[in-house]
């Protein structure tokens, strides 16, 4: 029984982080119809910044008193803010000239960005993994039946769940959400009605990057930040948005849950073809419902 609970918790853990990354990707596509291939790198960037800040505090404290866990938790979202700031900078400078051009160019410019950000991370933090495991270890673990489970993982799951609730409230219950949805449905019409579309684009892109960065920030204490994590995350979040529907947040949530469960099952029962099964699910969904389970046709 407790094994099943642990499997469920692990699936939720994957799903939480995946939702944050894929939700951002989907939001950006939904509003500006751009598939950002560099999105996974923003997640990696968030992870690195958080690990770096936590590492700085720990190193400083090594001389004197140990930093309190509360303080470390407080600075952990630094990665999310850094990713958001990065996004706010990228959209107006590099992406804006491409909205009116063919899709091929949008994919190419974000592919170029992917290569650039990958190496900027390597340049800033070197080729070795960066860890923030202090937090993870300090949280200790809880007993579930005969097994033990890290307490920190509950925090990740909680953040993922809260992010989903906040995002839903933000998009369906606020004025900004209304403007965002209107722009997503018909950019020209909302511009005609007085919406500053450029501003909405920057805000949506920043919000998407914030989510990706948050995903990186909360996962880095339990898994260190490594080079290449961005590309792996991008492919998984592609599966999520394809299954759920590009541009749909409900879809991203459902897709993340499906991918989380399949991954957990796959690692346990069919490790050799775990990834292949995920890609095949994505391909099958594309064939049966090209717009995804929740997508607009």
């Amino acid at each position: 029984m407790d094994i099943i609970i642990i499997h469920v918790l692990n699936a939720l853990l994957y799903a939480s982080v995946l939702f944050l990354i894929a939700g951002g990707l989907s939001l950006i596509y939904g509003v500006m119809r751009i598939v950002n291939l560099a999105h996974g790198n923003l997640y990696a960037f968030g992870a690195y910044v958080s690990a770096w800040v936590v590492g700085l505090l720990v190193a400083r404290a090594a001389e004197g008193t140990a930093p309190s866990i509360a303080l470390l938790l407080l600075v952990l979202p630094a990665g999310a803010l850094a990713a958001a700031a990065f996004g706010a900078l990228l959209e107006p400078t590099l992406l804006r000239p491409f909205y009116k051009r063919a899709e091929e160019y949008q994919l190419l410019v974000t592919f170029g960005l992917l290569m650039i950000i990958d190496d900027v991370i390597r340049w800033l933090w070197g080729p070795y993994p960066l860890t923030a495991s202090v937090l993870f270890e300090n949280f200790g673990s809880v007993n579930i039946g005969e097994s033990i489970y890290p307490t920190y993982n509950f925090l990740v799951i909680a953040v993922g769940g809260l992010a989903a609730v906040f995002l839903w409230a933000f998009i369906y219950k606020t004025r900004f959400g209304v403007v965002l949805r209107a722009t997503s449905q018909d950019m020209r019409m909302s511009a005609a009605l007085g919406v500053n579309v450029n501003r909405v684009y920057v805000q949506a892109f920043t919000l998407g990057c914030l989510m990706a960065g948050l995903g990186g920030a909360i996962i880095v204490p339990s898994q260190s930040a490594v080079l290449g994590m961005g590309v792996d995350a991008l492919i998984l979040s592609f599966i999520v948005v394809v299954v759920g529907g590009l541009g749909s947040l409900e879809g991203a949530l459902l897709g993340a849950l499906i991918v989380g469960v399949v991954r957990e099952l796959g690692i346990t029962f069919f490790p050799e073809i775990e990834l292949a099964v995920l890609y095949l699910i994505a391909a099958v969904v594309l064939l049966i419902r090209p717009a995804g389970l929740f997508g607009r046709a």
Partner: protein
Amino acid sequence: MSTVTAAVFEHRSPVRTLGWALPALVILLALPFLVDQYQTILLAYGLVMGIAALGFNLLLGYTGLLSFGHSAYFGVGAYSVALMVKYLGVTSMELFLVGAIVACVLVTAVFGVACVRYTKIFFGILTMALSQVLWSLAFKFFWVTGGTDGLRVPTPTLLGAITGKGDKIAFLATAYYYYVLGVFVICVAVMWVIVNSPFGRALQAIRDNEVRAEFIGIRIRQYRWVAFLVSGVFTGLAGALWVPLNGLTTPDIMHWTFSGEIVFMTVLGGFRSFTGPIIGAIVFNYLKTYAVGYTVYWQLLLGVVLVVLVLSLPTGIVGTADRIWKRWRAR
């Protein structure tokens, strides 16, 4: 949305084309006598990638479909050679090429049926997802594919007689170089015939206006499927030629980032021209080799090149050179 300019592919007479192609061929033939072995092998890599990009561009430039999964077909070509060595003990290069073509026809025929139902971004994502399926299989089934260690491939026997016994470098820089060049010339000629045939014209019609093409009786999906097949087979052939050159095949060449490199080199050369992908592949090969040798931050360098290219020179090397040439002549 799509503001792609209408057909820019001019119809050139075969005679005028030979005026360009023959001097280029003479230079390529003479090169092993003029430069050292390292440079010759590097150029052989460039020619191989040129075949891959040429095949890829039948989809992007002529049919208007951006595939982000061509690494799969390159990998199928490469792995079918490696598996023929491992399980069948084959050493003949001609058998390798035939095997790779058969394997690629099978894979692209199945993938194609699924992919050509879509266009634009969904086509890109679907091709990418399917290529990643193959990548993860190559990555995980290590008892068959060697996993990340890959599979080693010894130097093959060319035309049933020429072997690489002894000096492998000399073999690659002379006999194998000319073999690659021979296949390259055949591929370019075949592709030239394809794109200038009624079939090639129909593909361009589909690219420029799908609805109108359907009205004049073109079976869009069928044509796209055939284009997909031909494109994949060319890229797979390049993969088969690449393996003996590299001596080793790893799952890296199946990963979608390698597909990105194929797209990169095609756009670098210019996907709106026939020769663009070839030039782009050769230039990209030098660019990457020297960037990797020069700095650990080669990805940064290539990324900046790509962004600048897309921002300021969307027609690529060939398109830009063509424009400068025309402006110069108009004076």
